[in-house]
């Protein structure tokens, strides 16, 4: 893939400057300063530092991989050089800021940023620390490559886990407090960050854990007590864990999981349309909106309501209406493929949103004011108000959708869809009726989305047209691509990453789209088949590697 021999000093310099420019732009847009507010290890390390150094670490490590056969000193030297070079654009920024006030042009070049870059020191001492610090980090990152696997593994494993725990220490400390009391939490966390001592212990613990697994692997007796269990017991245990999840997570995290669940539901539907049947649908939010609006109109106790059904009575109507809309959209686009289909569906999605927003239908759909006073789901006279209860409704929906997707994928219909995705003409020549096959894909996808919409309406108790923007369709499409097109576990992972993670990193909402875009670019370059590729597409995209 990459020719080792052409990787020369010039390339190392280029790499170093590139990493420096990335670090510079992250600083100048205020990203680093903002992230600095989240401390990982109290008084020592913040998320800002992690992001300031992460381009350097990534580039130094990757270039070390490229020249791994050229001797230790060259590798370490390249790492050090990349580190120094990374610091140069930052130093220039610090110097300019020191002598001229450039804050009037670059608002985010604040004293705070200078403090981070210069480690609270003066300009001279700070510059030296930054330069040498970056050189050292580069050297260490490159040095990681020279270490044998049995040392490198535990180090990366321990660092990753400790950093993750540090990043989410605020949430973790909140949860632990409610289980073990504030005294316990005070030992581990200092001001929403890890106690340095505890961080050290965690590092050792995870390293030891990994060393242990490696040893076991070598002796080939990896303990997997769950491996011999009856699959029914395994599923039962998994189910039990899922049922107990809201108790463990608490209200806030359960709310996050609920949002993820709704996106999983939509993702599973779109996965059928795009992943299985290969029909690129960009107006997928329309079915979500239809499900939500039907639920809203049928159940609302406000002035728009006329029947005031319960959630459970209205649910079949919501899903049914969305399914019908799926078929109605499907009929005119039967003869369309690829880009054309994408554009038509895009238009359809907008039409539905604009209809909901329009003054013409204000008396039916509430226009921009939306529909209010939608009741929560109710079981035996008991309103499911808390997220912990709604969790079970969503879980039920997701499990149902997962089951349907899984059964259909491995059935005749699944093969019909995939054949149609591969070659429509040939599929027809094999006796497949394209009309019914396409409409079934649209209908099933729309049904899942309608179900998600219905639950969404009832969960929020009010809906507005602006909740059904194009961005929802794009989000759902992105999450199935990131997870792995056509892969069912991929949908869940994709939703966790693209919906769950941003919720947990709420304070960075400003930069959400930036991170999103960066993630997508990196994903497409490094693993285009997604995090959990479906078996087949994995083989397809890496076919050349298998043949080698």
């Amino acid at each position: 893939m990459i020719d080792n021999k052409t990787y020369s000093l010039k390339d190392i310099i280029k790499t170093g400057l590139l990493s420096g420019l990335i670090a510079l732009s992250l600083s100048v847009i205020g990203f680093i300063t903002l992230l600095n507010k989240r401390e990982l290890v109290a008084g020592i390390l913040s998320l800002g530092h992690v992001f300031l150094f992460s381009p350097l670490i990534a580039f130094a490590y990757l270039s070390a991989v490229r020249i791994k056969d050229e001797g230790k000193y060259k590798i370490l030297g390249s790492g050090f050089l990349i580190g120094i070079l990374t610091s140069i654009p930052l130093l220039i920024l610090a110097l300019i800021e020191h002598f001229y006030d450039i804050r009037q042009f670059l608002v985010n070049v604040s004293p705070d940023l200078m403090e981070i870059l210069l480690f609270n020191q003066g300009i001279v001492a700070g510059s030296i620390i930054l330069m040498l610090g970056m050189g050292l980090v580069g050297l260490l990152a490159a040095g990681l490559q020279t270490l044998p696997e049995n040392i490198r593994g535990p180090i990366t494993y321990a660092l990753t886990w400790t950093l993750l725990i540090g990043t989410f220490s605020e949430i973790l400390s909140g949860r632990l407090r409610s289980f073990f009391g504030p005294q316990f939490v005070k030992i581990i966390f200092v001001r929403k960050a890890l106690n340095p001592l505890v961080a050290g212990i965690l590092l050792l613990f995870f390293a030891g854990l990994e060393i242990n697994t490696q040893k076991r692997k070598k002796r080939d007796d990896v303990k997997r007590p769950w491996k011999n269990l009856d699959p029914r017991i395994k599923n039962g245990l998994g189910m039990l864990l899922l049922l107990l999840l809201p108790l463990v997570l608490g209200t806030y995290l359960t709310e996050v999981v609920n949002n993820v669940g709704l996106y999983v539901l939509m993702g599973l539907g779109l996965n059928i349309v795009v992943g299985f049947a290969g029909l690129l649908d960009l107006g997928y939010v329309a079915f979500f909106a239809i499900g939500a609006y039907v639920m809203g109109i049928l159940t609302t106790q406000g002035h728009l309501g006329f029947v005031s059904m319960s959630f459970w009575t209205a649910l079949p109507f919501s899903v049914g209406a969305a399914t019908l809309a799926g078929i109605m959209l499907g009929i005119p686009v039967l003869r369309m493929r690829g880009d054309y289909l994408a554009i038509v569906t895009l238009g359809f999605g907008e039409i539905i949103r604009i209809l909901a927003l329009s003054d013409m239908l204000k008396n039916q759909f509430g226009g921009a004011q939306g529909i209010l006073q939608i009741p929560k789901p109710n079981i035996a006279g008991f309103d499911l108000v808390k997220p912990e209860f709604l969790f079970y409704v969503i879980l039920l929906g997701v499990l149902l959708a997962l089951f349907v997707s899984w059964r259909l994928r491995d059935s005749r219909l699944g093969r019909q869809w995939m054949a149609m995705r591969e070659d429509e003409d040939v599929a027809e020549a094999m006796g497949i009726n394209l009309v019914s096959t396409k409409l079934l894909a649209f209908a099933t996808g729309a049904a899942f989305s309608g179900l998600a919409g219905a639950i969404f309406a009832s969960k929020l108790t009010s809906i507005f047209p602006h909740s059904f923007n194009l961005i929802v369709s794009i989000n759902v499409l992105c999450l199935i691509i990131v997870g792995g097109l056509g892969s069912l576990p991929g949908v869940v992972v994709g939703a966790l990453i693209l919906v769950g993670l941003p919720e947990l990193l709420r304070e960075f909402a400003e930069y959400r789209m930036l991170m999103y875009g960066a993630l997508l670019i990196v994903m497409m370059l490094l693993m285009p088949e997604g995090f959990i590729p479906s078996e087949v597409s994995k083989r397809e995209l890496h076919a050349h590697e298998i043949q080698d």
Partner: protein
Amino acid sequence: MLVLSTNDVTKSFGGLTAVNQFSFDVPEGKIYSVIGPNGAGKTTFFNCITGFYEFDGGKIEFMGEMLNGKSTDQITRLGVSRTYQNIRLFSNMTAVENILVGHHPHFKTYWFEALIPTKRILQEEAEALEEALHLLNFVGLKGLGDQLACNLPYGAQRRLEIARALANRPKLLLLDEPTAGMNPNETVEMIEFIQRLRDELGITILLIEHDMKVVMSISENIGVMDFGTKIAEGTPKEIQRNPQVIEAYLGRGAADG
């Protein structure tokens, strides 16, 4: 009995008449070849038979049933199956899955029955799989069932395409240049294989082929096409001596000298 009978089939694209009043009959159990120079309209004619193109005039009958106005999948269900000149497998599906797609018209359960795995549907799936493996074996690809179609070697892809067509359980099999791009050894194997199809499975075969050696050695009847019209029809021997055919292939004057 005639398996296929066409009468004055005409298909034009704008000003170009690709197939012009083409009539011929294919009796049951025969290997019938359609030959002609490049661009003579052979593949267009195939596309008319399989319903991929709607033709402008004439009629096509299959086992006494009119094919006019029927859609591709309906015609396939009647028992007409085909392969393609440039192999068109479902590349990202495994070999067995490809064949199972071909088996599609013979599933009797409804799609939603898959949601509740009843004995009926499990049994049907098992039978389909068994038939697919049998076909895989028949075309000589035993053990390659789990390979992705795109990873198979060229000759195997040709065979897999035929296996997929066979899974339709056709009465008439249309092969569009089955030996294109093959070396002489593979070509000989393919000729034997096509003969086996007819002899062992009793399938009538309609063949488009460029390679004269192939055509002359396996066809019982040959129809020659040039500029969309039939210029000759007969046994291989008759065709080889027909001056019009020689002219179409080798140019004017060749027949005389």
